[in-house]
């Protein structure tokens, strides 16, 4: 119990240890999603091939 309380306290006071990695991960995933987006025109030319 004491371990969990201490851990919770740690998380509250040192957010950078978990918040930054979380943000970095989400940003990375988002960046990959955005950067590999298909051209908005692509669906209109699909009938050609």
């Amino acid at each position, binding site marked *: 119990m004491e371990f969990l309380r201490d851990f919770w306290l740690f998380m509250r006071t040192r957010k950078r240890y978990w918040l930054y*990695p979380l943000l970095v991960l989400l940003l990375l995933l988002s960046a990959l999603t955005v950067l*590999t*987006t298909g*051209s908005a025109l*692509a669906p209109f030319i699909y009938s050609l*091939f």
Partner: protein
Amino acid sequence: MKKRLWLFKGLALMLPLLLLALVEVLLRAFGYGHDYRLFVDDPERKGYWIVNQHASERYFTETDNATVGNFEPFLKKKPDGTFRIFVLGESTTIGYPYFHNGSFHRWLQYRLMHTFPNRNFEVINLSMTAVNSYTVFGFGKQLVDYEPDAVLIYTGHNEYYGAMGVGSTSSLGSQPGLVRLVLKLREFRLVQWLNRTWSRIRQTASGQKVDLREGMMKRMAADQQIPLGSEKYQNGIEQFRTNLTDLCQALSGQHIPVFISTLVSNEKDLKPFISAPGTASAEQQFQLAKQAYQKGNIREARQKFVQAKELDLLRFRAPEALNQVIRELGNRFSNVTVVDSRAVFETHSPNGILGNETLLEHVHPNLYGYALLSDAFYEALKKKKRLVADGPNEMSFDQLRQQMPITPVDSLKGAYEVMILKESWPFNEPMPPEENRPKTVEEKLAGGLVVKQIAWRDAMRELLAHYLKTQNQRGALQVSEALVLEYPYDPAYYGQTGKLYFSANQPERAVWYLKKAFQLEETFATAQSLFITLLKLDRPDEALPYLRYAAAHNETAFSLNELQAFVEQLVTTKKQYLTDTTNVALSNQLAAGYLKFANATGAAKYVAKSLRIDPRNAAALQLQAQLQTLKTAPH
């Protein structure tokens, strides 16, 4: 204390991953997103795999735009002796604009099933429109778990503008490794959620700003031009090379034979879509090629037509560099065979230059072209000894072209599709004026198919009913065989085709179809049709098992026991006769037996044999007279 601090730091760093995992679990638990495995259980048939309808979504940013291909089931447990072929590729590979039996894989399937009547073939086409080597790689590497005997590939024309291609994807499109990472990540529901959210944002934004259709030509001309030798051009070739090399490597590791075709495109009868200004432009090369062609300088014309295609800034036709990559793959991997379809098309084109004789527009073959494509793969399979054709049954290319069940509706549907396609950008060819006459049944059905008013199966059923009503036996047979090819696990279509062949006095084909129907579903009706046809063909030993089945499951008021006893006797007599073919008493006995059950064909065969040996044989002459009476008697 310090130790605990480090532990907390470690746990805190892992927390984001745990959090994302939790979100992933929750999304899956609530059924969000889709599983992108290539095959799933066939919901309509127990024990069969079928293509997952969501498998292609991973390759499209907007999953609503994801194309789907054929849904061709195959047995989970591959039966002994079955030859299983998977086909990978793009719109040409799936038979655009005909689809269904217009596709080269169906031509191949038809030829194989009649050339090797005693073998079972599964030809599963996994191609779909608008995809390129990323999808071919993604699908192909999963095939190792499904026991393929051969993998056939035709891909390359969509390398630039197809899904995830360098010409259709944002900045990371030139990095195959990163694109593949993204495709892998899309298996996660969280990434699917991110993707959909981003799509909605884009749709909302673009909807407010510009009508994309309206400005398409302008935008294509501005954004999508890919000059020969440019960075984007090279990236496209690298993308193709990387994906196909890795696929060949994966299949090579499992010793799976791969047959990869060179690409064909219209060079003579299609002017470049977008030409750069200047003297070495695509347009200028095209004009020079035409002039050379008219003057009969064929060698120069051919070279310039190809060059015009290479210089075309709109890369809807694969550059020759991709054919070079394909040839390199053949040299590099022992399990890879290059199917030189380009050479086959050249052989069948005037002066060896590809044009409208084999192609409909820029890249898609016409029906003759699809037949040629199937022939190229067939010959390659034969050459590599994957299949050894037994002489008398082998269906020649000419026979294939005559017999392939492509209905007029399929053919017209393709023609209409192409007319519609050519009416808009980048062809801009006006549609021919509509003829002022009532439309035929075939034209109405083809029109209905194009505008998706009617499903293909329903169109075929209507066409079959029309042909049966108008006593068009040949047409009815064609439609019935077309349905067999499309639905190879439906015994009803085999049975129907068998009966039609029997009526058309082609008992050999009738037996083949009826046996297939019986294999799929044992019924009294099929057994009855089978033993009647086999007795007509004087194959009593083959007829006997079906007669026994029919006798055991008799649905009629007539007893089949007497016939069964007679056929058993017939089998014994025939065995004796085969050891002593000059024994007139035995041939007379066989003739009399057949005559008793009004099998004129069987009886006539043995009467003729008797009279050939002894022209004055009284018993044979008497049987001949009885036969005449039977033939002239009113039915």
